[in-house]
């Protein structure tokens, strides 16, 4: 059973009179890769900033490990952020940027992090080593050095060494070894990005917040970083809260996707859930391409739309109830006309590499269909769809068709 690390209870943020985040409830488990997904202005970044401590909620609570942290200032939260525009310190080099957080830690924190006993042992070892350089030590001298207390300065020296180790470790992790002395302004976008990530993860935060960190990178780099981030999350065991407007990014990386719109959570689920079982028209449209058709549930796993009856797998509708039918473009099958449920004419065809994107007109409505083959424009095309690939959604009054 996964352990909750942070919980948002009825969280609300208002700017003037408008809701940026509107009474959302959400919990995040330890070790989870969760993505807040939505169009710009949906409140995803505001939510992230509230978790990070940069915005104070108007109402509601943020609870971390059972403790309310609404008013805890950012520097006291075990949370680090990778900012959208990276926000690297221009006056420091790569090393300085990454070590920044570690140098900010108090001596006690560092003692705890690296283990006081271990540090003392290392300090004593070094003392003995230095002493033996000057003269040969007998057993007694060594024992004396071992028993003598370790001074604060010696401990600090060991901490600095450990910090240095940590920084280089994380530089290796983000593939920036050897970049110590480079000015951050002389780095490429992708490298700056890595510094920003390294600077955050080196602190071993409980939660890492990422605010559209890949938005400024080009496609290839972005895809690479997606896998690297996912891999990093797995190996470091840190909870990632990722904000993006890119649905592909969200589906690729997340354990859980939270779809938001106008400050309201539309759906929470695994990428598979979100893609295959969208809860409403907005989610269906936002996540991937969809054909959404208004239909009527006939009862007994039969749904009627476009003048034809289809078998489906949904049962939670009353006979005669109106519903929205979602069929993904790749789920349509093109079949000979005599076995087709629907027949339309091909209006346009675009080659997309793996498949052709066909635009098929049926009774004046456009359907997007992905298929490996294409046909002459204007040809009659027959369509069929398997029952399990038809997804029905409840109709909400406020949604327009």
């Amino acid at each position: 059973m996964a352990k909750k690390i942070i919980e948002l209870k009825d969280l609300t943020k208002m700017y003037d009179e408008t809701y940026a985040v509107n009474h959302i409830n959400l919990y995040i488990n330890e070790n989870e890769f969760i993505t807040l997904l939505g169009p710009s202005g949906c409140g995803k970044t505001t939510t992230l900033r509230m978790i990070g401590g940069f915005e104070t909620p108007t109402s509601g609570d943020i609870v971390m490990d059972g403790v309310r942290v609404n008013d805890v200032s950012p520097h006291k939260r075990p949370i680090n952020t990778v900012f959208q525009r990276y926000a690297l310190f221009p006056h420091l080099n790569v090393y300085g940027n990454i070590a920044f957080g570690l140098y900010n830690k108090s001596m006690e924190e560092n003692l705890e992090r690296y283990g006081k006993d271990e540090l003392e042992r290392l300090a004593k070892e070094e003392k003995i080593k230095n002493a033996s350089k000057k003269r040969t030590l007998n057993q007694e001298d060594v024992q004396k050095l071992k028993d003598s207390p370790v001074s604060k300065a010696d401990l600090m020296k060991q901490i600095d060494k450990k910090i240095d180790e940590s920084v280089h470790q994380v530089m290796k992790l983000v593939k920036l070894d050897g970049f110590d002395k480079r000015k951050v302004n002389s780095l490429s976008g992708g490298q700056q990005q890595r510094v920003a990530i390294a600077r955050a993860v080196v602190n071993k935060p409980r939660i890492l917040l990422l605010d559209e960190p890949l938005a400024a990178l080009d496609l290839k780099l972005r895809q690479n970083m997606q896998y690297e981030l996912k891999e990093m999350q797995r190996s470091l065991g840190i909870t990632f809260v990722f904000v993006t407007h890119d649905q592909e990014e969200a589906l690729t990386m997340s354990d859980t996707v939270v779809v938001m719109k106008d400050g309201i959570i539309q759906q929470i689920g695994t990428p598979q859930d979100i893609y295959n079982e969208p809860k409403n028209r907005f989610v269906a449209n936002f996540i991937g391409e969809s054909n959404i058709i208004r239909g009527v549930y006939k009862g007994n796993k039969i749904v009627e739309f476009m003048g034809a009856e289809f078998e489906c797998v949904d049962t939670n509708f009353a006979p005669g109830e109106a519903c929205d039918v979602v069929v993904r473009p790749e789920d349509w099958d093109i079949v000979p006309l005599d076995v087709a449920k629907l027949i339309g004419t091909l209006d346009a065809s675009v080659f997309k590499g793996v498949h052709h994107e066909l635009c098929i007109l049926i009774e004046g409505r456009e359907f997007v269909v992905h298929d490996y083959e294409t046909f002459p424009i204007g040809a009659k095309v027959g369509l069929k769809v398997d029952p399990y690939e038809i997804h029905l959604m409840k109709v909400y009054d406020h949604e327009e068709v």
Partner: protein
Amino acid sequence: MRKFKSLARPYFVWMLTLVALPLVVMVVLSFMKTNGVKFEGAYVTLENFTRLASPSVLVGFYNSMKFALIATVLSFLIGYPIAYIISKSNIRNKFLVLAAIILPMWSNKLLRVVAIGYALSEYNVLRSFMNTIGIDFMINLKGTDLAIVIGLVSSYLPFMILPIYTVLEKIDPLLLEASKDLGANGFWTFWKVVFPISLKGVATGVIMVFLPSATGFAVPYVLGNGNYVLIGTVIEDSFKIGMDYNFGSLLSLILIVVIFGALFLVSKVDKEGETLL
């Protein structure tokens, strides 16, 4: 861009005739003994250099550097907090506050210095006011070190505030958030992020205050009752009273060298050359 290049030509001509040429003349004059600018009976000599060690020159250099240094440090200590507070404040119109700082600079500098001189002299407004309400109050600063420092700081403070303010204003607020995010509290964020970044503005401010303080002679002359020997006054006297163009030229050149040395030091601090220079 090419067609605009020719627009810069008058500027080059201007610089050539009014900066480069006089410099050459000064270099030539420093190695000669002439009668004013007349070259009759002139001869080449190193005689001018031997006079550099004379007491008036040494005292002048010492005084100039001393006052310039004190004025610069004080301007920094006063100007930095002011610039910081303005940049941090939520005042709707920061420009108005800045304008209030700049506005006095629009009046003639000499007039301002003379006015300060009156305010610091034996008979000042404060004294007459205090006397009318029956308190005997007497302060006479004119002619002291303090008066000169007050004059220099009040004259050049805006030049310290403006560049620092500009740099502070340009610091991305996201950097402050990042610093807090990485565990630095308010003071530490200032000390580790804001201040190092603002050093470029400080460097500019230091130059803008130090150079005129070190080379000018009007302020110390008026507020020091003419009792102070400064390098500026020594040079002025060489030209005006002694008609000694050769020695005056040499001193001016040395001052230029010193100033370039200072600029070089500053450019070491500001490695990317992002100051307003």
